[in-house]
């Protein structure tokens, strides 16, 4: 088989070009969106988009095993782990705008553009006329997965075994880091909690938000019979939305009932 035949067999053909020019910009947009979005959850979702595009690239480039692993492990497991941690960390996930070092962001962006230009130009020049050999031959016997498995358990066996040590260390380390040490017996059981609650100042449950108010949103505080707001019903971590009339206490209960029948909701719907 001559070189030209191999090249012709692995030239980047029409469909792949189209796929590249569609998925490439999407991947770029995902990564830029990840860096730019203020909310960390939006960042994670943008990154998922980029990773999906990269998985598609792996499929296109005759690496179906890696493409599947990319989508299952990266977007399916690692990014979900990120989202879990974001939810655990809670309200703190938005970024601070304060610049600790003056001009650091501008310098970073300028350096980044320069770095991208240099490394992109270098790679482009160095590999411009390169002839792609293609993986048709390497994937020929038994397919991609079989060949990767053969390599993994022959040539790369030592690295593969070391990987197991790495993974068990990571799992144990994560358990140790995330573990909260408690004194044995310091945790209250159901019985102790029930006794403490009955002996405490409030044996009943807290009023739910929105129960006696005019909306059923969790952001609406419950109203007491005199029309004032039940402070205990305010949800933590939420900006409560009160309609001005309720906040001013100018509405009597009779009016409340007519509004709740749905006849006139102007001015009392959630902002």
């Amino acid at each position, binding site marked *: 088989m001559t070189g030209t035949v*191999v090249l012709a067999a*692995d030239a*980047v053909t029409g469909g792949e070009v189209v796929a*590249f020019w569609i998925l490439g910009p999407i*991947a*770029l947009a995902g*990564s*830029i969106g*990840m*860096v730019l979005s203020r909310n*960390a959850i939006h*960042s994670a979702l943008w*990154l998922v988009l*980029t*990773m999906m595009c*990269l998985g598609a*690239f792996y499929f296109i*480039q005759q*690496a179906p095993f*890696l493409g599947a*692993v*990319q989508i299952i*492990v*990266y977007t399916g497991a690692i990014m979900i782990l*990120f989202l879990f*941690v974001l939810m*655990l*960390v809670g309200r*703190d*996930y938005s*970024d*601070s705008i304060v610049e*600790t070092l003056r001009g650091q*962001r501008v310098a*970073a962006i300028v*350096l*980044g553009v320069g*770095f*991208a230009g240099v*490394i*992109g130009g270098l790679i*482009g020049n160095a*590999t*411009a*006329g*390169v002839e*792609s*050999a*293609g*993986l048709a031959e390497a994937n020929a016997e038994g397919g*991609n997965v079989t*060949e*990767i498995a053969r390599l993994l358990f022959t040539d790369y066996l030592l690295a593969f075994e070391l990987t197991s040590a*790495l*993974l068990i260390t*990571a799992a144990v*380390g*994560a358990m140790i*880091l*995330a573990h909260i040490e408690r004194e044995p017996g310091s945790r209250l059981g159901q019985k102790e909690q029930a006794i403490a609650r009955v002996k405490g100042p409030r044996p009943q449950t807290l009023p739910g938000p929105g129960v006696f108010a005019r909306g059923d949103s969790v952001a609406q505080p419950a109203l007491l019979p005199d029309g004032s707001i039940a402070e205990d019903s305010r949800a933590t971590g939420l900006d409560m939305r009160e309609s001005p009339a309720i906040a001013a206490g100018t509405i009597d209960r009779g009016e409340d009932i007519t509004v709740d029948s749905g006849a006139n909701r102007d001015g009392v719907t959630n902002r």
Partner: protein
Amino acid sequence: MSPTYYLVLAAILFTIGAVGVLVRRNAIVVFMCIELMLNSVNLSLVTFSRINGSLDGQIMAFFVMVVAAAEAVVGLAIIMSIYRTRRSASVDDANLLKY
């Protein structure tokens, strides 16, 4: 068109990840930027594997994924424990080692 385009795309993605590490203050977002850098290197490894006609590049990309998974688990656990003690996930607040 040659597979070079994939390499250039990988370089640009790597740069965006590096800039994100420098610019962002939230430790979890910094972590995501590191993941993006690892991913872009994976793309270049897969492309090199295709150019050279051997599967070694794909094996290396596979090992990068394994290391990235372990790194994500440990790193996120560290972020969690820092958040527990300092009530913040910002990299600016974890400054005790300075003094």
